[in-house]
């Protein structure tokens, strides 16, 4: 049974007001196309979870989708600030609630969520203000050594959205290059939307099963969305649009200019195809040069 649907239908079916949502991806493979569709469908009161909120969560905050953010690093990677986020936190716009960890803490929360354990232990946080700011950071005593270790609670989002390089129509999804913490996010979530650059035949997946990070059995919907990660990147497909990230500082510093950007590039387009068609030359500017992996053999 095919799970392939349009982005509109995937978001309409699986992302609801009040949900906790995680669009995971560390710099690589960020599902911008899904974030934009959530904005277009005007979802509200979302708890946005993610290690690095990146520009996509800044846009979702500016669009009024977010009630709360759960995160570990909220910046514009390599460029500067997330201004909608800062306005909300610095008292210059409608406030959002924060729940804050470090990267390791967020990875540990998702690892616990994926493993269906209520907590995860890590050596961290002693002698810092993080447990003061976030009382969800607790401790546990090792039953063998008596050591006190930090703990974080499991994170089990209602929906995980993961952009991948290729998937089949059943949702079996393959990624190479940076893996981030997408696998853990998908296994931790109740519903999973896989967004892919390429829909491939099941035979392509089965020819190289070690590349599969998410099995179709945990996937609710598959969306085929070429260039769906722009302005982030997809290794082997297209480069990161650094210009976009750098220019974003000017767009987002001012509330009105950010609103105009959302009007033009999110509300003003029907879908990702229109968004891409609106910026000719992406292909020439960002298309990946070839660096083939080589072949291994699965015979016996």
């Amino acid at each position, binding site marked *: 049974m095919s799970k392939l649907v349009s982005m509109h239908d995937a978001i309409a079916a699986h992302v609801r007001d009040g949900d906790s949502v995680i669009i995971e991806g*560390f*710099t*690589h493979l960020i599902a911008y196309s899904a974030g934009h569709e959530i904005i277009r469908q005007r979802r509200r009161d979302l708890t946005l979870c993610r*290690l*690095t909120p990146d520009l996509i969560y800044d846009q979702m905050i500016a669009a009024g989708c977010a009630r709360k953010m759960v*995160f*570990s*690093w*909220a*910046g514009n*990677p*390599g460029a500067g*600030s*997330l201004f909608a*986020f*800062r306005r909300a*936190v*610095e*008292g210059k716009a409608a406030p959002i609630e924060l729940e*804050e*960890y*470090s*990267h*390791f*803490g967020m*990875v*540990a929360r998702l*690892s616990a969520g994926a493993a269906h354990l209520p907590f995860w232990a*890590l*050596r*961290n*946080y*002693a*002698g*810092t*203000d*993080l447990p*003061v*700011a976030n009382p969800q950071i607790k401790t546990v005593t090792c039953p063998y050594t008596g*050591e006190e270790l930090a703990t974080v609670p499991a994170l089990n989002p209602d929906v995980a959205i993961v952009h991948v390089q290729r998937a089949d129509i059943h949702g079996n999804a393959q990624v*190479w*290059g*940076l*893996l*981030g*913490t997408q*696998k*853990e996010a998908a296994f931790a979530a109740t519903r999973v939307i896989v967004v892919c650059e390429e829909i491939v035949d099941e035979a392509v997946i089965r020819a190289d099963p070690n590349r599969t990070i998410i099995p179709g059995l945990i996937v609710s919907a598959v969306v085929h969305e070429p260039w769906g990660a722009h302005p982030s*990147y997809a*290794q082997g497909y297209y*480069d*990161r649009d*650094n210009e976009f*990230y750098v220019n974003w500082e000017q767009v987002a510093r001012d509330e009105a200019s950010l609103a105009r950007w959302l009007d033009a590039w999110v509300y003003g387009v029907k879908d990702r195809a229109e968004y891409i068609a609106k910026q000719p030359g992406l292909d020439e500017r960002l298309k990946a040069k070839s*660096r083939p992996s080589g072949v291994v053999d699965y015979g016996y």
Partner: protein
Amino acid sequence: MTADYTPKELMACVAARELRDGEVVFVGIGLPNLACNLARATHAPKLLLIYESGAVGAVPERLPVSVGDPSLVTGCIMVASMADVFQSFLQGGRIEVGFLGGAQVDRWGNINTTVVGGSYEHPKVRLPGSGGAAEIAVHARRLLIIGALSPRMFPADVDFVTSPGNRYHGTPRSAFKHPGAGPRRVITDRAILEANDDTGELELSALYPGETVESVRAQVGWPLAVRDALGSVEPPSAEELRLLRDVLDPKRLFLKG
């Protein structure tokens, strides 16, 4: 030797010289990345760079603009999941050197990248937060801090302790049993500060050319202790400058200013 260099160029050189060949370094973007690549191009060709994104043994063909840059992946030795990066590499004790910067660094090497002014709930300026910094400061066997001196960046106490230094509200680091030794050196644009082995307090240990004890003290928010035998710092060599300017950061993305 040449006097024609910027403070950032000298900072990159000083940081590079801190690294020993073959060490495993947890690298961030910007000056730490430049310093590591300068070290690889000079005295430490076998330096192994690990980025929190999971790229191990990266050999980027362009200057990466973020720790997740695709150029760090193409041709690297291993891509680790972030769970493995933090659990097996960092917490697993495999990282010898960590590099951190921050909005504030205090007398004890505590680093703040969370909020400045106001309270945590209602800050004057909201910064990005920890990212991987808290755990790097806990686990890297030795920690190097890098940043330009100013009274604003080097207060007596940070507004928020994101990454643990050598003392927290009077309690010495040893009480927390962190695996890593904590901040040993702070590489600034005017001088090198070094942690006192007994107290963990940052002290002036070496001056850059043209700087004085007073010029450094004026930039620091506490009565900076000065070591008896102050070291001096060599300015960048012609070769170091050539590498930085022509090879490593020709567009001056991180060396400007």
